[in-house]
């Protein structure tokens, strides 16, 4: 019997512009405080994957500091239960750096989900730069995260102006919709 592949290959990710907007709006308060913050991108995983929801962890179980964004396992639990009932999976995560570098730190590489095809996107300067081409786009491939060069990024990341995206906040105990 062949077991199903839990991580089918991804050729392309479609990210609604609404997801980028919700992400930046979600991390902005932390950025203004000069602390790191981030968001999870969830959606349908397939050869052409699509982000359909953005979840910004905030509150209990979330640590936002100048050089660290960290979530408790209970926050992951909240998001996991929600994802299961909404039939979506985690496609990637986004977080901001306060400084000018968008490069992954060792913490960024080690203290995150490490399975094939997961995106890790980093915006420098507290996330004030809205142009996604200024962000660093990494994808996990077997042994670690690899940064996409601009050509690959433009080929594999499609920003859709028209697709919808829901926005949520989550903490260790609950998840709540964010009104547009």
């Amino acid at each position, binding site marked *: 019997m062949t077991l*199903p592949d*839990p*991580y089918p290959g991804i050729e392309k990710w479609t990210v609604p512009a609404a997801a980028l907007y919700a992400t930046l709006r979600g991390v902005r308060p932390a950025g203004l405080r000069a602390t790191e913050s981030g968001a999870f991108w969830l959606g349908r995983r397939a050869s052409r994957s699509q982000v359909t929801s953005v979840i910004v962890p905030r509150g209990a179980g979330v640590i936002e500091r100048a050089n660290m964004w960290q979530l408790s396992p209970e926050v*992951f*639990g909240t998001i*996991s239960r929600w*994802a*299961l009932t909404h039939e979506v*999976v985690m496609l990637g995560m986004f977080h901001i750096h306060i400084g000018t570098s968008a490069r992954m730190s060792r913490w960024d590489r*080690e203290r995150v989900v490490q399975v094939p095809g997961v995106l890790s996107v980093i915006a420098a300067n507290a996330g004030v730069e809205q142009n996604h081409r200024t962000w660093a786009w990494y994808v996990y491939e077997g042994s670690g995260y690899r940064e996409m060069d601009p050509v690959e990024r433009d080929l594999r990341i499609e920003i859709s102006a028209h697709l919808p995206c829901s926005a949520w906040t989550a903490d260790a105990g609950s998840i709540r919709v964010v009104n547009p």
Partner: protein
Amino acid sequence: MIQVPIAHESAVATEVAYLPAVAVFKKSYEDETRVSVVRIDAMAFFHVADHRDRDTHEFFLEFEGRRVADLSQTLEQLMGRDRRHARFNLIEQITPGAA
């Protein structure tokens, strides 16, 4: 009147989900199976493992919103005698090491 004891069905249809994975781990276990066995099987299915770098990475099972702390208990002890389905989430806990 002869009373026929009702056979106790012992199989538990078990599912484990992991946030970034498309597929759910599914397997039928005897209700005397320890939860630790489910955890190990699910981790193998999702290609993850407990490990240490500068931090300690451990995976645990969550059942009905709570971490299963005692992995030596059986599925029956966890769920009760008559439940035949178990749904878990697999979650990673990262304990920071010394900086």
